[in-house]
């Protein structure tokens, strides 16, 4: 059984007991416990079922690398699946549930899969579900989806808040073990601005557990003094519970701070995602112990040796009363000594090496522990927890020569430096043959913009596993980082000392000549249930690349990203392929180091501030008057204003009819308004518009088209010349920022010699379109300006005051009616709007929305950017040749429009379309042509670009692009429909309403 020891536990506070529940059962622990430690203290060794075979699993590690002990944590709006019990700090009232089991952890139906293991090999899905083909969609996929996934998704909106924080530092040190502390000390003393982050709640890492002495004192004492010195430095910031999640180009790093996971009812954000710009980064991320691949190495109670002594020393928890240790190195003997110190039994140490005689081995022997060399675990007894092991020859085929009763197994296959952060941004690794590990290759470090390294690995993360070397290496890294920052630093580190270790011996499978039956029980990737036999099968089937093998077997693809399985897996692959480990190489290390919550990634962006919604000066009025909104860029524009009991469709038709009959108001404030000013403004506009702008007289307006370099129509709008050297260019609502950027880019990169300024005045003005036969009457009532036909004719503009508000009035029309667009200072936009409504009350003034605007422009055959254009349409397609200058030497898009494809007479061109029965054509429908394509699809000869019911004409109207369309007036063609037979429509002029333009010109 596993249990709490009477004494000890450097991280727990026995005076602060905590209650928690696991799978509905009440348990107790202490402040300072992790959930994993507390579960073990309550004799809960099995805590989960595995993903594929639903095998019983317990915690195998004690930290972030844990693959097995994943739980559903919290309830309701605070439920979160797949939380690692080993990194979950215990708090009063914690509620957790086991995952991946039905109906219960102890009795699980899915465990049937384990019996089927023989027929569920690597690549099972790829091989099995190929036939019959139809079965995939209707049988296999639904069944697989049902059984896929780990944990269950939360159903309630997250109750917590999250945020980001940006920090700019000289040096980011990731990892608050003794190496990180040492590097921070050295750089901090040199005057660098340092941010030191540690993923757990405690400083010092595992040095205290491993019995390291620093400067002649126990590690704990040195850690305390180092921390005090760091805290006293103004230039050093320290954060616990903050994990270095990723390292990116240009010294950008992400760190994930968990603020209230350990105290959920504290005010403030739950997580904070740090976005750090660091000139230098030191990764002091330590090392992770490797499991040994022996049969049954996944039975609950089999743990990493380092984790076993973590539990004993840090939390006073004994994973078992009798622990057998199996190892290929000296470090695991520390676990034996820690267990003995805690009064626990170590029946045997199985050492795979032929000789074991280092100081730690001698110490264990001296305390009477039975050390068996050249021995392996060949069998683990017990199903839901260890009851004993069978032992045999390390190099044998797995014949047990002896059986030892035990309730825990501590295994160690050596240690792997945590190279993830080093590797995220391109740091390369070198295979250290003697110590059987990949470590950072300092000669191939991640480089910054100057080509110089900006990441330095320190301590165990750099392969300096021994205490003395680790400390010295950290001092070196801290000083090197300071030097890179231009600071003189003293690299001298504290002197750390621990027992010397004899060399380890790489052992990739145990026993060495195990047959297929045993290899099927040797787990490499616990979370995805990948075994030695799976990797070997992949190799036999021709998977040579480690990246392919990873995807075929799913090795390392679980949420732990193969932290425990990586090296063992590729060693097995290398062996199967008859090559070397460095030849096989590693898979790619990708951020984040451990999973981030979606909340932390989103930060503040949720609810009302999920994204910015731009508001016009009249937005409040629209909201107060029941406007139905539609998104236009980040604006929300009124689509229509339904009256009580009125459907949207009816509201739109009413708004069109009222505008055509009386007068309508449109909030056009969202239109882009760019001031283009300077002696060369005309010349510049001639280059960016397709038509001539320099000839425009001050006081006049001209409709203009803007094309991309490739000739495609990009934006349109009315340009008004304010003075000899100033123009206002109107853009589409959604295009304002893009067009502004487009103009600035050309000015800054190509035509920097032109004397032109562009100022985006979109937000400076509210703009109201006053439209309809009674528009002039309405505006004249406001007083202040002569807006008669004589004073202000069509396509002119004028400046003055209306209703006492400074106004610029543009006599332009997008509806075909008498129309004035009035720009007023934004701050007075609402007042002007209100004044118009009041002055026009008896004229029948009503606001209209974007849909009425669309219908009215379609009735007039005016094109709309985004409807008639889609990035592949040129002005000539739309019959806008008149707006494309033939006289100008150049303009953006001119050359492109002369390419053969652009002048091809077969291009589809704009026409109007009328159904024969007055119905409305489906939007986007294709015009059918004779015959089929090579792919057996129907040939097409055009498509619908805009289609509406016209309340003015009482019938459906549409515009479309049709091959030779303008030459085919009166011809009837058919349009495909999804919901019925093709619909015939007649090709007509796109101008359905007032073709002579009499109404707008009054």
């Amino acid at each position, binding site marked *: 059984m596993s249990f709490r020891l009477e004494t000890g536990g450097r991280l727990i506070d026995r005076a602060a007991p905590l209650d928690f529940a696991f799978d509905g059962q009440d348990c107790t622990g202490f402040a300072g416990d992790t959930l994993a430690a507390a579960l073990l203290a309550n004799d809960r060794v099995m805590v989960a079922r595995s993903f594929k075979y639903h095998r019983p699993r317990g915690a195998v590690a004690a930290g972030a690398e844990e693959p097995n002990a994943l739980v559903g944590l919290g309830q309701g709006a605070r439920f979160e699946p797949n939380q690692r019990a080993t990194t979950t700090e215990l708090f009063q009232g914690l509620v957790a549930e086991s995952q991946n089991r039905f109906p219960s952890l102890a009795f699980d139906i899915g465990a049937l899969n384990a019996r089927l293991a023989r027929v569920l090999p690597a690549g099972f899905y790829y091989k099995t579900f190929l036939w019959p083909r139809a079965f995939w969609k209707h049988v296999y996929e639904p069944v697989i989806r049902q059984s896929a996934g780990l944990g269950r998704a939360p159903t309630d909106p997250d109750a917590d*808040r999250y*945020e980001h924080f940006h920090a700019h530092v000289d040096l980011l040190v990731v990892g608050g073990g003794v190496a990180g502390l040492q590097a921070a000390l050295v750089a901090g003393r040199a005057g660098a601005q340092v941010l030191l982050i540690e993923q757990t709640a405690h400083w010092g890492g595992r040095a205290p557990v491993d019995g390291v002495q620093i400067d002649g004192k126990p590690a704990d004492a040195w850690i305390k003094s180092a921390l005090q010195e760091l805290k006293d430095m103004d230039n050093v910031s320290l954060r616990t519970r903050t994990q270095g999640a990723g390292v990116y180009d240009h010294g950008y790093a992400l760190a994930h701070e968990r603020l209230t996971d350990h105290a959920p009812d504290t005010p403030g954000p739950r997580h904070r995602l740090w976005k750090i710009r660091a000139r230098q980064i030191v990764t002091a991320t330590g090392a992770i112990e490797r499991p040994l691949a022996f049969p049954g190495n996944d039975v609950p109670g089999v743990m990493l040796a380092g984790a076993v002594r973590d539990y004993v020393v840090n939390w006073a928890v004994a994973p078992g009363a009798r622990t057998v240790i199996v190892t290929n190195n000296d470090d695991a003997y520390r676990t034996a000594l820690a267990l003995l110190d805690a009064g626990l039994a170590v029946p045997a140490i199985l050492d795979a090496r032929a000789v074991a005689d280092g100081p730690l081995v001698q110490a264990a022997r001296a305390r009477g522990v039975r050390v068996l060399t050249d021995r392996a675990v060949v069998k683990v007894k017990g199903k839901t927890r260890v009851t004993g092991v069978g032992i045999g020859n390390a190099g044998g085929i797995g014949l047990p020569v002896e059986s030892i009763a035990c309730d825990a197994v501590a295994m160690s296959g050596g240690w792997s430096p945590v190279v993830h952060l080093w590797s995220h941004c391109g740091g390369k690794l070198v295979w250290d043959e003697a110590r059987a590990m990949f470590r950072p290759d300092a000669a191939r470090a991640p480089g910054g913009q100057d080509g110089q390294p900006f990441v330095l690995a320190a301590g165990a993360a750099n392969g300096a596993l021994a205490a003395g070397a680790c400390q010295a290496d950290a001092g070196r890294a801290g000083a090197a980082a300071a030097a890179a920052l231009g600071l003189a630093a003293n690299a001298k580190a504290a002197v750390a000392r621990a027992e010397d270790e004899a060399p380890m011996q790489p052992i990739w499978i145990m026993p060495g000549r195990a047959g297929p039956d045993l290899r099927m029980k040797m787990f490499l990737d616990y979370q995805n249930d990948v075994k030695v036999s799976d990797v070997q099968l992949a190799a036999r089937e021709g998977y040579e690349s480690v990246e392919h093998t990873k995807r075929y077997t799913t090795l390392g693809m679980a949420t732990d990203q193969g932290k425990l399985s990586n090296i063992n897996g590729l060693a097995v692959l290398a062996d199967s392929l008859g090559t070397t480990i460095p030849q096989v190489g590693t898979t790619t290390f990708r951020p984040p180091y451990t999973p981030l919550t979606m909340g932390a990634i989103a*930060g503040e962006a949720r609810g009302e*501030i999920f994204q910015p919604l731009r508001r016009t000066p009249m937005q409040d009025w629209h909201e107060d008057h029941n406007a139905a909104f539609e998104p236009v860029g980040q604006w929300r524009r009124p689509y229509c204003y339904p009256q009580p009991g009125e459907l949207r469709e009816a509201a739109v038709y009413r708004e069109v009819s009222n505008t055509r009959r009386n007068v309508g108001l449109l909030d056009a404030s969202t239109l882009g308004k760019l001031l283009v000013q300077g002696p060369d403004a005309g010349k510049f506009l001639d280059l960016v518009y397709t038509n001539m702008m320099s000839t425009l007289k001050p006081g006049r307006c001209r409709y203009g088209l803007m094309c991309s370099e490739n000739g495609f129509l990009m934006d349109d709008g009315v340009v008004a010349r304010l003075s000899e050297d100033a123009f206002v260019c109107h853009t589409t609502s959604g295009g304002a920022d893009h067009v502004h950027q487009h103009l600035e880019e050309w000015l800054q990169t190509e035509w920097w010699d032109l004397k032109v300024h562009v100022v985006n*005045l979109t937000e400076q003005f509210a703009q109201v379109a006053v439209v309809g036969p009674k528009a002039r009457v309405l505006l004249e009532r406001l007083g202040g300006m002569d807006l008669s036909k004589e004073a202000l004719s069509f396509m002119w503009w004028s400046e003055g005051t209306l209703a006492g508000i400074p106004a610029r009035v543009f006599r332009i029309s997008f509806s075909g009616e008498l129309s004035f667009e009035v720009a007023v200072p934004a*701050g007075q936009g609402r007042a002007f709007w209100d004044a118009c409504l009041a002055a026009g009350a008896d004229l029948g003034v009503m606001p209209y929305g974007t849909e009425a605007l669309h219908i009215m422009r379609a009735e007039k055959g005016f094109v709309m950017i985004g409807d008639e254009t889609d990035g592949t349409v040129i002005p000539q397609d739309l019959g806008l040749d008149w707006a494309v200058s033939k006289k100008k030497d150049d303009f953006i898009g001119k050359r492109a429009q002369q390419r053969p494809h652009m002048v091809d007479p077969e291009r589809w061109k704009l026409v109007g379309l009328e159904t024969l029965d007055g119905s409305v054509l489906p939007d986007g429908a294709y015009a059918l042509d004779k015959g089929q394509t090579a792919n057996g699809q129907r040939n097409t000869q055009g498509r619908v670009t805009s289609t509406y019911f016209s309340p003015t004409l009482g019938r459906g109207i549409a515009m479309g692009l049709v091959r030779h369309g303008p030459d085919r007036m009166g011809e009837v063609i058919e349009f495909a429909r999804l919901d019925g037979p093709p619909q015939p429509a007649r090709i007509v002029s796109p101008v359905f309403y007032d073709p002579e333009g009499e109404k707008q010109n009054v």
Partner: protein
Amino acid sequence: MSDPHTPMIAQIAQAPAQGMITLRGALSARKIAAAARAVAGVAMPGPLECRFDGARGIGWMSPDEALILLPRQDVAEALASLQKALVGVHATVVDVSDARAVFRVTGPHAREVLAKLSPADLSPAAFGPGAMRRTRLAQVPVAIWAEGDGAFSLICFRSVAVYVGALLAEAAQPGGAVGYFPSGA
């Protein structure tokens, strides 16, 4: 959320209407600098800086753009004076007083509230009084300047004033002090 015992970590206020004039041109040109100084009462600031004298000042917006701040009622006169002084000079002056909203962020953790939302380096060392940054606040462009005593001003486009106000309020929620910058810095 607004537990009286755990106060907001900064105070957010939308400032009343502020006069603003955009000046585009060669900022170091003698005539332009002099014209700006005549209406703003301060010399042209260097890159990433702003200068104030009471209610008037100039902010550096880009290598060829400055923002002149002044009382709203003085804008028309200042525009006229600038235009007169800059006849024959390639420069653009235009009233943008209505285009923007102004916020003031004050209180012990004002700097941290801004650093939650802006990627600019807002540390006291890099962003002291007289510093100005055009940056972004979450998803929208803003300009921020430091006024000293832990107070900051921020301008954004008027259409996103509601969004910016809500962002700042969210970042200033109780319990959100980061403890990274010295309090009140």
